[in-house]
């Protein structure tokens, strides 16, 4: 493999760039505009046991250097994902994909992962215990170490594929939650999911988002993401996937120096649909600029 390759939980990636779940659908919208096989992999749309429409609209609000979304896990449900989405994906993506899974109970998570486990296209599970946009579930699993432990354990019991747990930044002590997941057998940690945010329509005097609050993402949250990636990667011995406001090749380098083995890119894909391709193309020059031989050399280089 080349100088961009990294190894994520035993699976080799051609490069560390991974479009984040919810910003890349099931890949084929992007495959229409570029060959997505240039990606390390990508994390597909958060999938749940049953089909979900998600939240009422408006679901989107703009912020300085970022945006708020409250989509609320819209997806066709795991059966349809397997029957319809994965076959379509297979036509345009020939690498292992990351299966992003959400649920409203420990059993939900286990059920969905067990179904998906049989699909050979899937290389990793990304267990989302941090969706800020669904009530009575989602984030609550990611704000309590015990709950995060239970979900991780249940998923590990139904699959032999690497399980990466995606954590919420909306917590007092991110390290304790990451450690709970590691103790439960997680093979990796990904962070940060969106921050809980809110904007107001000054004319209507109501929240812009129908759901009032939503997940805040974009370059604005990058410094919080770098901090948490640094804290977690120094506290656990499993790989960390860094994300949160990454929008340039330099941001990718910064995340990896902070401790990330691979880097997910979210909101940037929505503004520039070619963002991930462009960043992958820029990376070699940026490595030269900072006198980095192989990108894996800088993982967690900051003490």
């Amino acid at each position: 493999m080349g100088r961009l390759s990294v190894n994520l939980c035993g699976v080799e990636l051609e490069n560390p760039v991974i479009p984040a779940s919810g910003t890349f659908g099931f890949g084929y919208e992007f495959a229409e505009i570029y060959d997505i096989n240039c990606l390390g992999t990508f994390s597909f749309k958060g999938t749940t046991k049953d089909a979900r429409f998600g939240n009422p609209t408006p679901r989107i609000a703009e912020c300085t250097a970022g945006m708020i979304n409250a989509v609320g896990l819209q997806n066709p449900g795991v059966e349809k994902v397997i029957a319809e989405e994965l076959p379509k994906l297979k036509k345009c993506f020939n690498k292992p994909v990351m299966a992003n899974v959400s649920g409203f109970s420990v059993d939900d998570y286990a059920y969905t992962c067990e179904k998906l486990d049989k699909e050979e296209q899937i290389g990793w599970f990304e267990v989302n215990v941090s969706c800020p946009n669904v009530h009575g579930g989602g984030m609550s699993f990611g704000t309590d170490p015990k709950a995060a432990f239970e979900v991780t354990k249940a998923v590990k019991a139904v699959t032999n594929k690497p399980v990466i747990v995606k954590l919420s930044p909306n917590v007092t002590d991110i390290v304790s939650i990451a450690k709970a997941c590691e103790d439960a057998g997680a093979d990796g940690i990904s962070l940060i999911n969106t921050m809980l945010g809110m904007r107001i329509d000054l004319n209507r005097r109501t929240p812009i988002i129908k759901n009032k609050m939503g997940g805040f993402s974009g370059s604005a949250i990058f410094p919080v993401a770098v901090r948490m990636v640094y804290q977690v990667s120094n506290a656990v011995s499993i790989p960390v996937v860094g994300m949160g406001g990454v929008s340039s090749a330099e941001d990718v380098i910064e995340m990896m120096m902070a401790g990330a083995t691979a880097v997910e890119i979210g909101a940037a894909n929505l503004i520039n649909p070619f963002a991930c391709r462009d960043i992958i193309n820029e990376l070699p020059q940026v490595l030269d600029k900072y006198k980095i031989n192989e990108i894996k050399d800088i993982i967690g280089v900051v003490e």
Partner: protein
Amino acid sequence: MKQVLFSVKENTPLTDNVYKMILTGDCSDITASGQFVNIKIDGLFLRRPISVCDREGDTLTIIYKVVGKGTEIMSKMPEGTVLDVLTGLGNGYNLELCGENPLLLGGGVGVPPMYMLAKELRNIGKKVTVILGFNTKSEVFYEDEFKSLGCDVTVTTVDGSYGKKGFVTDALPESYSHFCCCGPEPMLKAVYKSTNTSGQLSFEERMGCGFGACMGCSCKTITGYKRICKEGPVMKKEEILWED
């Protein structure tokens, strides 16, 4: 969808707060009236979706109303400004459904997409009736442009200060083969209720990406969930499911 750099050729006010911007660049992905483009504006995070008013070769015409920061900045863009634009977004109107004498209804900034549609319909020899709705005389624009296409044009104003007093639905003709409509949701609902033919309506929603990736603008229809930016913005009358 294509990512294209356009340069501003003209940017002039049509009314107090409605502007016409003419852009030069690759329009090859704009294949139907009713489609929109998504414009990156320096200093703002999200692109701004604006419906296509006209497209001739490499010339793109859009008409926008100054409603917030983004359109405010656009209104001040000098000739020569270079813009990063995603083109050819959305489905657009289906001409084959329009029949021989379609009715086009546009309200406020819903008027511009009707222009390209009317032009296309006239090009294939249809008899086109157009009703343009505004609040008041000072907001009226593009009446003559539709007339010069050879359309039968009626303008309505809510306060009666120009044209026929009332809403577009107060000016419906005796008979028409099909209707195409773009405007604020209350107008869409009124047209939906007061028309007796098949029709196509264009919807608006706050969008994240504008090309189907983020699910920010989903809506429910009789035929399932749709993304206004991808399967829309134009919906067939039969498939519409009013939320409230």
